[in-house]
């Protein structure tokens, strides 16, 4: 029982990170109907940016307060990752509007290969690990085995919940959100009605990157290690989460992320940790084949 609760807590933490990445997939898919294959690598790049910023603050400037350092790192990573994703959209996706159907996806795969190899060449192929921080924990359940929650985990839950609320409000209540939903339905019509489609799509990519940067920084603080190829598997899992929750739906993305995170940790604990990625990929295939509209999504109508 204690182990189950502990794994549930770990799973929800992991799932929050997947959820944050999944929001990026879901928003981009919603607006331009493309699987942004490079999004996992954007997450990885943001983690590296966070790493550099953290080292800069702690070893060069020597900031004493870890919390303050983390907030600064978060902001720096969000800004610089947004810039990266904005540039990616301009270079790799915008010229392809109106090209053949698979063009943006192939371009995104090229971008994904480019990003991971760029980081490998620029920062080396080894694991980059940082000393653990925020090691304080709270014991929530005593027994044969103490169930603990760390401050880091609580921070991740709070950040995910706040960001989800903020972005859900942004998409459902503001003019920007209205423009996004208009572009989702019909870009040409939206443009005729005065929506700046290019700008809306750019902003979507910037938001997606900012959330990926939050996920990347949190990932770095909680696991303390990052490598150039760390974008691929979390990226695929987050995409699974987005599809499972219903692509195009923000709460769906977070729900899907939590489900994937919990399933993964429980599978690793009770079934086989060697096959945990097989479980995730199998869920992906099963969901896409049998439940392509997801839990909270709407069925896709084939338009001619």
């Amino acid at each position, binding site marked *: 029982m204690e182990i189950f609760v502990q794994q549930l807590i770990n799973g929800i933490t992991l799932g929050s990170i997947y959820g944050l990445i999944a929001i990026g997939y879901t928003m981009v*898919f919603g607006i331009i*109907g*493309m*699987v942004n294959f490079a999004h996992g690598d954007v997450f990885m790049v943001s983690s*590296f*940016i966070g*790493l*550099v*910023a953290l*080292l*800069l603050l702690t*070893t*060069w400037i020597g900031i004493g307060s870890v919390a303050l350092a983390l907030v600064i790192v978060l902001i720096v990573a969000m800004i*610089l990752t947004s*810039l*990266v994703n904005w*540039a990616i959209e301009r*270079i*790799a996706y915008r*010229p*392809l509007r109106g*090209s*053949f*159907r*698979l*063009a943006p*996806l*192939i*371009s995104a*795969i*090229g*971008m*994904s*290969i*480019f*990003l991971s*190899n*760029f980081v490998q*060449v*620029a*920062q*080396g192929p*080894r694991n*980059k690990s*940082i*000393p653990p921080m925020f090691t304080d924990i709270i014991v929530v359940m005593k027994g044969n085995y103490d169930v603990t929650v760390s401050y880091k985990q609580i921070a991740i839950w709070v950040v995910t919940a706040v960001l989800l609320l903020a972005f859900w409000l942004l998409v459902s209540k503001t003019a920007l959100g209205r423009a996004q939903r208009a572009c989702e339905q019909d870009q040409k019509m939206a443009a005729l009605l005065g929506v700046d489609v290019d700008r809306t799509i750019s902003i979507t990519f910037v938001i997606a990157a900012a959330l990926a940067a939050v996920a990347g920084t949190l990932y770095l603080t909680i696991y303390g290690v990052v490598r150039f190829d760390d974008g*691929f598997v979390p990226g*695929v899992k987050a995409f699974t989460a987005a*599809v499972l929750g219903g692509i195009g739906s923000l709460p769906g993305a977070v729900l899907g992320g939590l489900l994937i995170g919990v399933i993964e940790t429980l599978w690793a604990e009770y079934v086989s940790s*060697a*096959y945990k990625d*097989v479980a995730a*990929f*199998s869920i*992906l*295939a099963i969901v*896409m*084949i049998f439940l*392509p509209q997801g839990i909270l999504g709407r069925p896709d109508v084939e338009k*001619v």
Partner: protein
Amino acid sequence: MPDEAAARPNLIRALRETAVTALLAFGLFLPLIGFNTVQNIRNELVLETRWPLLLAIVAILAGLRFLHLVVVAPLMAERARASSRPATLPTTLPSWAMPAVIGFVLIYPLLAMLIAGPGAGKWIDNFGIQILIYVLLGWGLNIVVGLAGLLDLGYVAFYAIGAYTCALLGKQFDLSFWMLLPLAGILAAFWGVLLGFPVLRLRGDYLAVVTLAFGEIIRLVLINWKDVTQGSAGIGGLPRPTFFGLPFNASPDGFAARLGLEFSPLHRPLFLYYVVLAVVVLTAIVIGRLRQLPVGRAWEALREDEIACRSLGINTTNAKLAAFASGAFFGGLAGALFTARQGFISPESVNFSESALILAIVVLGGMGSTVGVAIAAVVIIGGTELLRELGFLKQIFGAEFDPAQYRMLLFGFAMVLIIAWKPRGFIGMREPTLVLKRRKAIDAELREEHG
């Protein structure tokens, strides 16, 4: 030509744009190029700066942007004004090209032996055989992606199935390579159908991601199912091809001894080269015929518009399964030939970056073009091997210089550029095999969404 007065604001505008580009490049590359994270002697991560490298990259990008704005863009505008039709490369090869290429490929190993002498093994093996295997892989994937328009990101799984079929059946039942080669192809084709079935309903992006998941599942099973596959350690000592039962070794029963030749380690790669070449030529003929058959035409129609295809009564299920099966078949053959070349297989050889590499070959060669894919395979694989050979690069960039890293960096970016700039590849033969002689003007609205 624009006069002085008009040119000056243009120059100012170009300078301003260049400054913006430089600033953006600085922001983009500052964290990961400007700083390097290295481990110090106490195993802690510390930062090092690389300002000269960062400034060099920013300067190069800004320079390119300026050059583009001031020289290239006006030139292209001029050319666009001068002729209404953009200049295109000739899409058909001259008539002597094909025989010349075939002749060269046939005598290539002999040339290599003549020039390199005893060192020819490397040239025949690393260049000849390896490139031919990638040509085969490229053509196999080209059927699925280029002809049928189904983006398969897990293609390397069939390569793995072919290779592991050879490894496991060869070890278990002591079959010879000649039995294993067709078996590898057939089993891979069977798996192609098996994995094709569930994804029939999916289209575009979803299909790509599910095939990616299948590829990864197969790789993870190969790694973790240690009782059968020996896990990451891989399987060695696989059966090598024999010459009508004569093995290529120095024993009295070997090829050289029986034919009264002096034993040479070159005999095996030489023989294998011609075996692979025969398979490749056969594949080219088969693919050429397939394109003429109803199923080949159905693939191309499927690529252009699936809904139209269905409403015209084409059985899209059969067409898709046939595409998956035949693509997988050639992938399986390539896997078998890979084990014949290496005598060893491990899951390391079948990861996603291998799928991405084959996809890069197909995309850069122009999806759907048989000749283009072959040229892309020669350029990409041969180019990488050549980079490996260039010793002075190691002196410039240090001993850790590995062209394999840079090649993927380059190919990733090249994929992005090719798709934007020449989506039909450099040799644009993505034209449908069967077209109406007289082109009809159709609404731009219709053209935009399809193809």
